Protein backbone atom coordinates (compact mmCIF):
# COMPACT_ATOMS: atom_id res chain seq x y z
CA UNK A 1 0.00 0.00 0.00
CA UNK A 2 1.18 3.51 -0.64
CA UNK A 3 2.50 4.53 2.70
CA UNK A 4 0.79 7.53 4.21
CA UNK A 5 2.41 8.59 7.37
CA UNK A 6 0.85 11.12 9.69
CA UNK A 7 3.34 13.23 11.56
CA UNK A 8 2.63 14.41 15.07
CA UNK A 9 1.69 17.88 13.94
CA UNK A 10 -0.95 16.38 11.65
CA UNK A 11 0.95 16.80 8.39
CA UNK A 12 1.00 13.98 5.92
CA UNK A 13 3.79 12.08 4.24
CA UNK A 14 3.02 9.98 1.20
CA UNK A 15 5.70 7.47 0.27
CA UNK A 16 5.71 5.53 -2.97
CA UNK A 17 8.17 2.68 -3.44
CA UNK A 18 9.84 1.59 -6.69
CA UNK A 19 7.56 -1.37 -7.29
CA UNK A 20 4.38 0.68 -6.89
CA UNK A 21 5.74 3.34 -9.18
CA UNK A 22 6.47 0.71 -11.85
CA UNK A 23 2.99 -0.79 -11.66
CA UNK A 24 1.34 2.66 -11.78
CA UNK A 25 3.42 3.60 -14.80
CA UNK A 26 2.48 0.34 -16.49
CA UNK A 27 -1.24 1.01 -15.96
CA UNK A 28 -0.80 4.48 -17.48
CA UNK A 29 1.12 3.06 -20.45
CA UNK A 30 -1.64 0.57 -21.17
CA UNK A 31 -4.26 3.29 -20.93
CA UNK A 32 -2.24 5.45 -23.30
CA UNK A 33 -1.94 2.65 -25.85
CA UNK A 34 -5.59 1.63 -25.73
CA UNK A 35 -7.06 5.12 -25.88
CA UNK A 36 -4.42 6.78 -28.06
CA UNK A 37 -4.55 9.61 -25.54
CA UNK A 38 -1.97 12.36 -26.08
CA UNK A 39 -1.00 12.45 -22.44
CA UNK A 40 -1.92 10.79 -19.18
CA UNK A 41 -1.02 12.09 -15.74
CA UNK A 42 -1.45 10.52 -12.34
CA UNK A 43 -1.21 12.92 -9.42
CA UNK A 44 -2.34 13.45 -5.85
CA UNK A 45 -4.97 15.92 -4.67
CA UNK A 46 -2.37 18.31 -3.34
CA UNK A 47 -1.23 18.83 -6.94
CA UNK A 48 1.80 16.56 -6.79
CA UNK A 49 2.54 14.82 -10.10
CA UNK A 50 3.36 11.14 -9.56
CA UNK A 51 3.67 9.59 -13.01
CA UNK A 52 3.00 10.49 -16.64
CA UNK A 53 2.81 8.80 -20.01
CA UNK A 54 2.28 9.86 -23.61
CA UNK A 55 3.66 12.84 -25.49
CA UNK A 56 4.34 15.08 -22.56
CA UNK A 57 7.61 16.58 -23.80
CA UNK A 58 6.08 19.88 -24.78
CA UNK A 59 3.60 19.96 -21.95
CA UNK A 60 4.38 21.42 -18.55
CA UNK A 61 2.94 18.50 -16.62
CA UNK A 62 4.08 19.80 -13.22
CA UNK A 63 1.93 22.87 -13.65
CA UNK A 64 -0.85 20.86 -15.29
CA UNK A 65 -1.07 18.65 -12.17
CA UNK A 66 -1.19 21.66 -9.86
CA UNK A 67 -3.96 23.23 -11.95
CA UNK A 68 -5.88 19.97 -12.23
CA UNK A 69 -5.81 19.52 -8.45
CA UNK A 70 -7.23 22.99 -7.97
CA UNK A 71 -9.80 22.22 -10.64
CA UNK A 72 -10.99 19.36 -8.42
CA UNK A 73 -10.84 21.55 -5.35
CA UNK A 74 -12.85 24.31 -6.98
CA UNK A 75 -15.52 21.96 -8.24
CA UNK A 76 -15.87 20.24 -4.88
CA UNK A 77 -16.65 23.67 -3.41
CA UNK A 78 -19.08 24.12 -6.28
CA UNK A 79 -20.67 20.77 -5.40
CA UNK A 80 -21.34 22.02 -1.87
CA UNK A 81 -22.90 25.23 -3.15
CA UNK A 82 -25.33 23.42 -5.43
CA UNK A 83 -26.31 20.90 -2.77
CA UNK A 84 -24.34 17.89 -4.00
CA UNK A 85 -23.14 16.08 -0.91
CA UNK A 86 -20.39 14.01 -2.48
CA UNK A 87 -17.56 15.46 -4.53
CA UNK A 88 -17.87 15.52 -8.30
CA UNK A 89 -16.07 12.43 -9.53
CA UNK A 90 -15.10 13.53 -12.96
CA UNK A 91 -14.52 16.71 -14.86
CA UNK A 92 -14.50 17.13 -18.59
CA UNK A 93 -13.12 20.05 -20.57
CA UNK A 94 -14.00 20.18 -24.23
CA UNK A 95 -11.85 22.06 -26.68
CA UNK A 96 -11.63 22.42 -30.46
CA UNK A 97 -8.58 20.21 -30.87
CA UNK A 98 -8.14 18.60 -27.51
CA UNK A 99 -10.24 17.46 -24.62
CA UNK A 100 -9.25 16.85 -21.04
CA UNK A 101 -10.89 14.18 -18.90
CA UNK A 102 -10.18 14.23 -15.18
CA UNK A 103 -11.29 11.56 -12.80
CA UNK A 104 -10.55 10.94 -9.15
CA UNK A 105 -8.80 7.74 -8.04
CA UNK A 106 -9.96 7.16 -4.49
CA UNK A 107 -10.07 10.23 -2.28
CA UNK A 108 -6.46 11.29 -2.58
CA UNK A 109 -5.41 10.83 -6.19
CA UNK A 110 -6.62 11.61 -9.69
CA UNK A 111 -6.01 10.88 -13.37
CA UNK A 112 -5.79 13.42 -16.17
CA UNK A 113 -6.33 12.16 -19.71
CA UNK A 114 -5.58 14.58 -22.56
CA UNK A 115 -6.86 13.41 -25.94
CA UNK A 116 -7.61 14.61 -29.47
CA UNK A 117 -11.22 15.37 -30.33
CA UNK A 118 -11.05 12.54 -32.89
CA UNK A 119 -11.07 10.04 -30.01
CA UNK A 120 -14.53 9.36 -28.67
CA UNK A 121 -15.33 10.19 -25.08
CA UNK A 122 -16.98 6.79 -24.59
CA UNK A 123 -13.73 5.00 -25.32
CA UNK A 124 -11.87 7.19 -22.86
CA UNK A 125 -14.53 6.61 -20.23
CA UNK A 126 -14.44 2.82 -20.50
CA UNK A 127 -10.67 2.40 -20.41
CA UNK A 128 -10.17 5.06 -17.77
CA UNK A 129 -12.65 3.32 -15.52
CA UNK A 130 -10.67 0.09 -15.84
CA UNK A 131 -7.37 1.89 -15.23
CA UNK A 132 -8.79 3.50 -12.09
CA UNK A 133 -9.75 0.08 -10.73
CA UNK A 134 -6.21 -1.15 -11.41
CA UNK A 135 -4.68 1.91 -9.78
CA UNK A 136 -6.82 1.52 -6.68
CA UNK A 137 -5.66 -2.09 -6.45
CA UNK A 138 -2.02 -0.97 -6.56
CA UNK A 139 -2.59 1.78 -4.04
CA UNK A 140 -4.23 -0.60 -1.60
CA UNK A 141 -2.00 -3.61 -2.18
CA UNK A 142 0.15 -4.28 0.85
CA UNK A 143 2.23 -7.11 -0.65
CA UNK A 144 4.71 -4.77 -2.27
CA UNK A 145 5.44 -2.87 0.92
CA UNK A 146 9.10 -2.44 1.40
CA UNK A 147 10.79 -0.17 3.81
CA UNK A 148 12.33 2.75 2.00
CA UNK A 149 15.23 4.53 3.53
CA UNK A 150 13.24 5.86 6.44
CA UNK A 151 15.82 8.17 7.84
CA UNK A 152 16.78 9.81 4.61
CA UNK A 153 16.08 13.21 6.10
CA UNK A 154 18.72 13.12 8.82
CA UNK A 155 20.91 15.90 10.20
CA UNK A 156 23.46 15.24 7.50
CA UNK A 157 20.78 15.77 4.89
CA UNK A 158 19.62 19.04 6.40
CA UNK A 159 23.17 20.41 6.57
CA UNK A 160 23.79 19.53 2.93
CA UNK A 161 20.40 20.94 1.94
CA UNK A 162 21.24 24.14 3.81
CA UNK A 163 24.47 24.45 1.84
CA UNK A 164 22.68 23.74 -1.44
CA UNK A 165 20.09 26.41 -0.65
CA UNK A 166 22.81 28.94 0.17
CA UNK A 167 24.43 28.10 -3.10
CA UNK A 168 21.22 28.32 -5.12
CA UNK A 169 19.99 31.52 -3.50
CA UNK A 170 23.17 33.55 -3.59
Amino acid sequence: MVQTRKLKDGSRQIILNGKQYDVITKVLSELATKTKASAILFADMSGQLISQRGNTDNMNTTVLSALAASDFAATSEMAKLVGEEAKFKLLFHEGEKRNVYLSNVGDNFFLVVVFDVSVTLGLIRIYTKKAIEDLITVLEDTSSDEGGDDNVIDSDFSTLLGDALDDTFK
Partner: protein
Amino acid sequence: MFINWALQEINLKIVYYGPGMSGKTTNLEYIHSKLDPSLKGDLVSLKTKEDRTIFFDFMQIEVGRIKGKKPKFNLYTVPGQVYYASSRKVILNGVDGIVFVADSQPHRMEANIETLLDLENNLKQDNHTLESFPWVIQYNKRDLPGAESVEALQKRLNFFNVPSFEGIAVKGDGVFNTLKAVINSVVQNVQNQL
Protein backbone atom coordinates in the same frame (compact mmCIF):
# COMPACT_ATOMS: atom_id res chain seq x y z
CA MET B 1 5.46 15.72 1.64
CA PHE B 2 5.58 13.24 -1.18
CA ILE B 3 8.49 10.82 -1.50
CA ASN B 4 8.93 8.84 -4.70
CA TRP B 5 11.64 6.22 -4.17
CA ALA B 6 11.59 5.17 -7.82
CA LEU B 7 12.71 8.64 -8.89
CA GLN B 8 14.52 9.44 -5.62
CA GLU B 9 12.42 12.58 -5.31
CA ILE B 10 11.33 14.36 -2.16
CA ASN B 11 8.60 16.90 -2.81
CA LEU B 12 7.61 19.62 -0.39
CA LYS B 13 4.70 22.01 -0.60
CA ILE B 14 5.26 25.51 0.72
CA VAL B 15 2.37 27.98 0.81
CA TYR B 16 2.71 31.77 1.04
CA TYR B 17 -0.21 33.06 3.10
CA GLY B 18 -1.13 36.60 4.09
CA PRO B 19 -3.60 39.45 3.63
CA GLY B 20 -4.37 40.95 0.22
CA MET B 21 -1.56 43.00 -1.36
CA SER B 22 1.00 42.01 1.28
CA GLY B 23 3.49 40.79 -1.36
CA LYS B 24 3.04 37.03 -1.61
CA THR B 25 3.12 36.97 -5.40
CA THR B 26 6.02 39.46 -5.35
CA ASN B 27 8.04 36.99 -3.27
CA LEU B 28 7.52 34.29 -5.90
CA GLU B 29 8.23 36.67 -8.75
CA TYR B 30 11.53 37.66 -7.18
CA ILE B 31 12.57 34.05 -6.60
CA HIS B 32 11.62 33.23 -10.17
CA SER B 33 13.60 36.17 -11.57
CA LYS B 34 16.77 35.22 -9.71
CA LEU B 35 17.03 31.46 -10.02
CA ASP B 36 19.04 29.64 -12.63
CA PRO B 37 16.66 28.45 -15.39
CA SER B 38 17.78 24.84 -14.85
CA LEU B 39 16.47 24.94 -11.28
CA LYS B 40 13.04 26.47 -11.82
CA GLY B 41 9.82 25.78 -13.66
CA ASP B 42 7.34 28.29 -15.03
CA LEU B 43 5.68 30.71 -12.67
CA VAL B 44 1.96 30.34 -13.21
CA SER B 45 -0.29 33.09 -11.91
CA LEU B 46 -4.05 32.92 -11.91
CA LYS B 47 -4.84 36.61 -11.70
CA THR B 48 -7.81 38.88 -12.27
CA LYS B 49 -7.64 41.74 -14.75
CA GLU B 50 -6.68 43.96 -11.83
CA ASP B 51 -3.60 41.81 -11.15
CA ARG B 52 -4.99 40.34 -7.96
CA THR B 53 -4.42 36.63 -7.43
CA ILE B 54 -7.77 34.92 -7.92
CA PHE B 55 -6.77 31.35 -7.17
CA PHE B 56 -3.04 30.88 -6.67
CA ASP B 57 0.45 31.28 -8.07
CA PHE B 58 2.57 28.21 -8.51
CA MET B 59 6.22 27.49 -9.19
CA GLN B 60 8.46 24.50 -8.67
CA ILE B 61 12.12 24.91 -7.76
CA GLU B 62 14.99 22.47 -7.27
CA VAL B 63 18.43 22.62 -5.72
CA GLY B 64 20.15 19.63 -7.32
CA ARG B 65 20.84 16.31 -5.62
CA ILE B 66 21.38 15.88 -1.89
CA LYS B 67 22.74 12.47 -0.85
CA GLY B 68 21.42 11.07 -4.11
CA LYS B 69 17.93 12.45 -3.48
CA LYS B 70 16.32 15.20 -5.45
CA PRO B 71 14.39 17.65 -3.26
CA LYS B 72 11.77 19.67 -5.11
CA PHE B 73 9.89 22.57 -3.64
CA ASN B 74 6.41 23.42 -4.85
CA LEU B 75 5.69 27.03 -3.96
CA TYR B 76 2.11 28.30 -3.89
CA THR B 77 0.50 31.57 -2.91
CA VAL B 78 -3.09 32.01 -1.82
CA PRO B 79 -5.35 34.91 -2.76
CA GLY B 80 -5.39 37.39 0.10
CA GLN B 81 -8.82 38.93 -0.39
CA VAL B 82 -11.26 37.94 2.30
CA TYR B 83 -13.86 36.68 -0.18
CA TYR B 84 -11.58 34.01 -1.61
CA ALA B 85 -11.74 31.99 1.61
CA SER B 86 -12.50 28.66 -0.02
CA SER B 87 -9.59 28.93 -2.49
CA ARG B 88 -7.26 29.51 0.44
CA LYS B 89 -8.51 26.41 2.18
CA VAL B 90 -8.03 24.08 -0.78
CA ILE B 91 -4.52 25.28 -1.54
CA LEU B 92 -3.49 24.24 1.97
CA ASN B 93 -4.21 20.62 1.09
CA GLY B 94 -1.00 18.64 1.70
CA VAL B 95 0.98 21.70 2.82
CA ASP B 96 4.34 21.09 4.55
CA GLY B 97 5.35 24.62 5.50
CA ILE B 98 3.89 28.13 5.48
CA VAL B 99 5.31 31.60 4.96
CA PHE B 100 3.04 34.22 6.45
CA VAL B 101 3.67 37.46 4.56
CA ALA B 102 2.52 40.31 6.80
CA ASP B 103 2.09 43.91 5.65
CA SER B 104 4.10 46.27 7.88
CA GLN B 105 1.81 49.28 7.37
CA PRO B 106 -0.07 50.21 10.54
CA HIS B 107 -3.45 50.35 8.80
CA ARG B 108 -2.98 46.71 7.68
CA MET B 109 -2.43 45.35 11.19
CA GLU B 110 -6.05 44.25 11.55
CA ALA B 111 -5.93 42.56 8.15
CA ASN B 112 -2.76 40.70 9.22
CA ILE B 113 -4.42 39.48 12.39
CA GLU B 114 -7.62 38.52 10.63
CA THR B 115 -5.70 36.51 8.01
CA LEU B 116 -3.60 34.79 10.64
CA LEU B 117 -6.78 33.70 12.43
CA ASP B 118 -8.18 32.53 9.10
CA LEU B 119 -5.00 30.49 8.59
CA GLU B 120 -5.26 28.93 12.02
CA ASN B 121 -8.88 28.11 11.39
CA ASN B 122 -8.07 26.44 8.05
CA LEU B 123 -5.17 24.49 9.54
CA LYS B 124 -7.40 23.24 12.33
CA GLN B 125 -9.69 21.63 9.81
CA ASP B 126 -6.74 19.44 8.79
CA ASN B 127 -5.79 18.82 12.42
CA HIS B 128 -2.79 21.15 12.32
CA THR B 129 -2.17 23.97 14.75
CA LEU B 130 -0.08 27.09 14.34
CA GLU B 131 1.68 26.12 17.53
CA SER B 132 3.21 22.94 16.14
CA PHE B 133 3.15 23.49 12.37
CA PRO B 134 6.33 24.65 10.57
CA TRP B 135 5.85 28.28 9.57
CA VAL B 136 7.74 31.56 9.44
CA ILE B 137 6.75 35.22 9.20
CA GLN B 138 7.98 37.84 6.81
CA TYR B 139 7.29 41.46 7.76
CA ASN B 140 7.13 42.90 4.29
CA LYS B 141 7.17 46.48 2.99
CA ARG B 142 9.76 47.63 5.52
CA ASP B 143 10.71 50.46 3.14
CA LEU B 144 7.34 52.20 3.31
CA PRO B 145 7.25 55.40 5.35
CA GLY B 146 5.45 54.94 8.65
CA ALA B 147 5.92 51.16 8.71
CA GLU B 148 5.02 49.66 12.06
CA SER B 149 8.00 48.79 14.29
CA VAL B 150 9.15 45.17 14.18
CA GLU B 151 8.62 44.97 17.95
CA ALA B 152 4.98 45.93 17.57
CA LEU B 153 4.48 43.43 14.74
CA GLN B 154 6.17 40.68 16.72
CA LYS B 155 3.97 41.37 19.69
CA ARG B 156 0.73 41.30 17.71
CA LEU B 157 1.49 38.49 15.26
CA ASN B 158 4.31 36.25 16.40
CA PHE B 159 2.78 34.72 19.50
CA PHE B 160 4.46 31.35 18.90
CA ASN B 161 7.85 32.93 18.37
CA VAL B 162 8.47 31.41 14.93
CA PRO B 163 11.42 32.61 12.81
CA SER B 164 10.67 36.09 11.46
CA PHE B 165 12.27 38.23 8.78
CA GLU B 166 12.08 41.80 7.58
CA GLY B 167 11.37 42.03 3.89
CA ILE B 168 11.21 44.41 0.97
CA ALA B 169 10.01 41.84 -1.52
CA VAL B 170 9.99 44.19 -4.52
CA LYS B 171 13.75 44.58 -4.10
CA GLY B 172 14.24 41.00 -2.96
CA ASP B 173 15.32 41.90 0.58
CA GLY B 174 14.57 39.03 2.93
CA VAL B 175 12.97 36.88 0.23
CA PHE B 176 15.55 34.10 0.08
CA ASN B 177 16.18 34.14 3.84
CA THR B 178 12.48 33.62 4.41
CA LEU B 179 12.32 30.72 1.96
CA LYS B 180 15.43 29.10 3.41
CA ALA B 181 13.98 29.39 6.90
CA VAL B 182 10.69 27.77 6.03
CA ILE B 183 12.44 24.88 4.26
CA ASN B 184 14.65 24.44 7.33
CA SER B 185 11.63 24.44 9.61
CA VAL B 186 9.98 21.74 7.51
CA VAL B 187 13.11 19.57 7.48
CA GLN B 188 13.60 20.02 11.24
CA ASN B 189 9.99 19.13 11.80
CA VAL B 190 10.34 15.89 9.84
CA GLN B 191 13.52 14.97 11.70
CA ASN B 192 11.91 15.58 15.06
CA GLN B 193 9.05 13.30 14.23
CA LEU B 194 10.74 10.28 12.72
